[in-house]
């Protein structure tokens, strides 16, 4: 190297140190964050321009009830998923009972069920004219609804049950993983010091698993907060109901945006809870080596109680609704299975695929920027995750406004300079839907990728760099292979979420564009779900895909000697791939 070149090199490095954070990865991460912030910022901006101040009216009338119901719903669902998730996870990890190996993965299935579909199906089953009440009437000779008491399914309690049934797998998944990875020695010490198995579970295992459980509950609650279909159908007046009322009945978008901002605050609280949980987890992983755990065989009543306890959520959360759906789908198959139906399915598939692929690609970029540069990129990752916290229809409006503004600006500029009109390029095209999906679900991908990056030790990354690989090459040759399975699972989960997504799809789609979800909605909204059951069934089947992959991981676990596993669910954050990473290097 000549002296001149060396000086130049030094000068470049000096400049680099003044702006150490402005490399392409970092810039990319901020661009992604800015794009994701756009709709959220749009909503906050709208909140400053209400048609009239609705708060005095809301405070005096419905707001306390909206907030109260929302808190009750969150509390109820939180309690339900906590008890169900932890109890089932505890049973399958520490005890041996009939069908345990099957139940261990069957317990995940309800995750594939969209909550609003389960709500419709249970209403069909449990309403007056449904089979349950009809059988009761026939058995006891009752005639009218006033002759006997039966719990109303369309109620706060019904909403808690339905959402609890489809959301508890989040807690189960995380609690199970955390319980499995706990050091056996710790538990042995507890037993040696005189604690019984139950006492050990409550006083040793659960506190260690607590952060993981908190993450699961937080995720379930975020889903609850965003739900509109179920609460609307069950006539539960939550903040979401209030938001739609102010927006559509009072024609006050600004007021609705203010309520959305309030809900965003709720959601950010949950996100904070989730990240707190994760931070503690990371700290806790140094606790010790894993060791094979023996499960305690249960006998007598305990055996059957454990079986019943684990089978009930699977039965009511998946098999019962799936059976009803299947029956409807078979009855209406000839009317449903048409060329049009296949077109809807194809639309669902390709839009969801592109959105999932784009999401994980962006998440890898953001995650890698974080790995390279730390804290500032971390902020970008947090901002890019905000979309997950906004109710779908509101997010759709937040997406629509900036996209249309860009389109109109481009059009005006082209007209002015080239006398050419481009019309609307982004809004009202499939691009708008994909954009909305990506913003909505990027949080899932970022969480997954962060978790996967977390498995790869800093030292190994540096070793790769020291051996002369550039940032891009290190990512491609070293990180991507390690990230692969985590990223694939995240992509699948986003794919399924996109298949289910409704409000943004409805509003943002181009002409003559139906997906399975919108097709199901048109009928379900008229309380004629049976006619579109085939579509709903397809969504459920698609949802089973990532779950089967997860369950394969679980089955793999079961035979793994170390009790350690490669679970790569984005939400589980497993710390297990270090050994594999070392081998790859």
């Amino acid at each position, binding site marked *: 190297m000549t002296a001149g070149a060396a000086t130049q090199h030094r000068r470049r490095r000096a400049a680099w140190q003044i702006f150490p954070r402005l490399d*392409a*990865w970092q810039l*990319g991460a901020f*661009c992604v964050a800015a794009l994701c912030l756009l709709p959220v910022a749009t909503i906050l901006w709208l909140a400053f321009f209400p048609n009239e101040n609705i708060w005095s*009216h*809301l405070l*005096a*009338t*419905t707001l306390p*009830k909206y907030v109260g119901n929302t808190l009750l719903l969150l509390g109820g669902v939180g309690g339900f998923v906590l008890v169900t998730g932890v109890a089932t996870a505890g049973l399958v990890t520490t005890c041996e009972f009939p069908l345990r190996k099957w139940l261990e993965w069957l317990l995940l299935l309800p995750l594939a069920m969209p909550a609003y579909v389960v709500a419709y199906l249970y209403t069909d089953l449990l*309403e*007056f*004219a449904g089979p349950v009440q009809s059988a009761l009437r026939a058995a006891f000779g009752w005639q*009218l*609804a*006033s002759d006997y008491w039966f719990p*109303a399914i*369309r109620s706060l309690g019904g909403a808690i049950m339905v959402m609890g049934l489809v959301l508890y797998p989040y807690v189960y998944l995380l609690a199970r993983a955390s319980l499995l990875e706990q050091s056996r020695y710790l538990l042995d010490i507890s037993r040696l010091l005189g604690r019984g198995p139950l006492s050990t579970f409550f006083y040793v295992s659960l506190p260690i698993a607590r952060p993981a459980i908190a993450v699961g509950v937080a995720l379930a609650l975020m889903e609850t907060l965003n739900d509109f279909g179920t609460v609307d159908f069950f*006539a539960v*007046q939550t903040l979401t109901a209030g938001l*739609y*009322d102010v*927006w559509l*009945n009072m024609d006050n*978008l600004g007021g609705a945006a203010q309520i959305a901002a309030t809900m965003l605050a709720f959601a950010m609280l949950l996100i904070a809870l989730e990240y707190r949980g994760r931070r503690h987890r990371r700290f806790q992983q140094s606790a010790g080596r894993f060791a094979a755990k023996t499960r305690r065989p249960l006998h007598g009543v305990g055996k059957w109680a454990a079986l019943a306890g684990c089978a009930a959520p699977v039965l009511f959360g998946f098999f019962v609704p799936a059976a009803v759906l299947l029956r409807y789908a078979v009855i209406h198959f000839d009317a449903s299975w048409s060329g049009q139906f296949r077109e809807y399915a194809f639309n669902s598939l390709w839009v969801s695929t*592109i959105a999932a692929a*784009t999401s994980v*690609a*962006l998440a890898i*970029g953001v995650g890698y920027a974080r790995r390279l540069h730390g804290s500032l990129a971390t902020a970008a990752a947090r901002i890019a995750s905000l979309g997950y916290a906004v109710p779908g229809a509101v997010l759709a*409006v937040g997406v*629509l406004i900036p996209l*249309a503004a860009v*389109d*109109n600006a481009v059009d005006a500029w082209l007209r002015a300079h080239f006398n050419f*009109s*481009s*019309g*609307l*390029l982004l*809004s*009202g*095209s*499939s*691009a708008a839907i*994909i954009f909305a999906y990506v913003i909505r679900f990027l949080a899932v991908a970022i969480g997954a990728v962060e978790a996967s990056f977390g498995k790869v030790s800093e030292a190994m990354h540096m070793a790769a760099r020291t051996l002369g690989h550039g*940032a*891009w090459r290190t990512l491609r040759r070293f990180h991507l292979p390690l990230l692969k399975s985590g990223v694939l699972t995240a992509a699948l989960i986003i794919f399924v979420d996109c298949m289910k997504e409704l409000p943004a799809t409805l*509003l*943002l*789609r*181009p*002409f*003559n*564009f139906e997906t399975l979800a919108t097709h199901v909605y*048109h*009928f379900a*909204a*008229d*309380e004629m779900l049976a006619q579109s059951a085939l579509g709903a069934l397809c969504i459920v089947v698609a949802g089973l895909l990532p779950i089967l992959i997860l369950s394969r991981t679980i089955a793999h676990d079961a035979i793994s000697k170390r009790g350690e596993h490669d679970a790569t669910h984005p939400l589980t954050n497993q710390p297990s791939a270090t050994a594999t990473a070392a081998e790859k290097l």
Partner: protein
Amino acid sequence: MKSPTRNFLIAPLCGLGLLNAVAVADTTAAGEVNLYSYRKPQLIQPMLAAFTADTGIAVNAVYAKNGMLERLRNEAANSPADVVLTSDIGRLTDLKNAGLTQAFASAALQRNLPAEVRDPAHHWFGLTARARILVTAKQRVARREISRYEDLAEPKWRRRLCSRSGKHAYNLALLAAMIHWHGEAAAQQWLAGVKANLARSPQGNDRAQVKAIAEGVCDVAWINHYYLYQMANDAEQRAAAATVRVVFPNQHGRGAHMNISGMAMTKHAPNRDNAARLMEFLAADHAQKMYAEINGEYPVNRRIEPNAYLQSLGAFKRDTLALSRIAGQRAAASKMTDRVGYND
């Protein structure tokens, strides 16, 4: 290092660009009309198919309820939409008030549609009319026991009424009409009386109210008339529909409360001529007849008879209060529903 990064950012953008090319090509072809519809596809597709068969003009549609107005507003002059279809009067006036529609002074529309179902300034037009009727349990309510909306607040109906959400557009329109006829104070008193008479908290759609009467949960409800027609044609719901009697309210006074589904031409309609043809087609005899036969709604075009089922219910007196007056009271009705705690 830089170029792969750039690719990584640019690739998705190129993808989006490609999608647009397709989307744009779709909407600028000739011989089309573009529809934004608040109404569900299964309710209007037969009429749209008839229009295409008749004229050769293809109809492109987006179906959505929430946020359609914001979409139109933000697409502004570049919006591809020509015509908007709505399922009630409220959305039509919202669109007009937001400056998103244009006047369409068509002689054919004025000839076919009576004055009370169209905007005096020609911005919106009714397509079908629906009566908010009372339904009573045949077995538990005598024939003339109830005859007016006002009667619903009487103490004798305590715990005997069922209602859809008070915030639903149909109930808000009825309350808005009550505010118009009786003033705010009396209307609120009425609504509180109705609330006190409910047998269960407001829930379900209009069909669900009929089912509740069949199940003995309550004795009286109020619904849009065509739901009863649709239930009578549904093998699973026919029995429930047969347990209720239809009462056209306020026949010795102002008449039954009417609402409309309707249409408007967008301010920047790019296919204005085709939009005009579609709107005139939907209000003319052929389509009006289809609306009546298929959906069981009352045609707004007076030359067309209601279908056989509706004729069996008999002729009735309609409230001819201009719909624009009802729309004006909608926000007040919504707030009143909150004050009364109607949905609790």
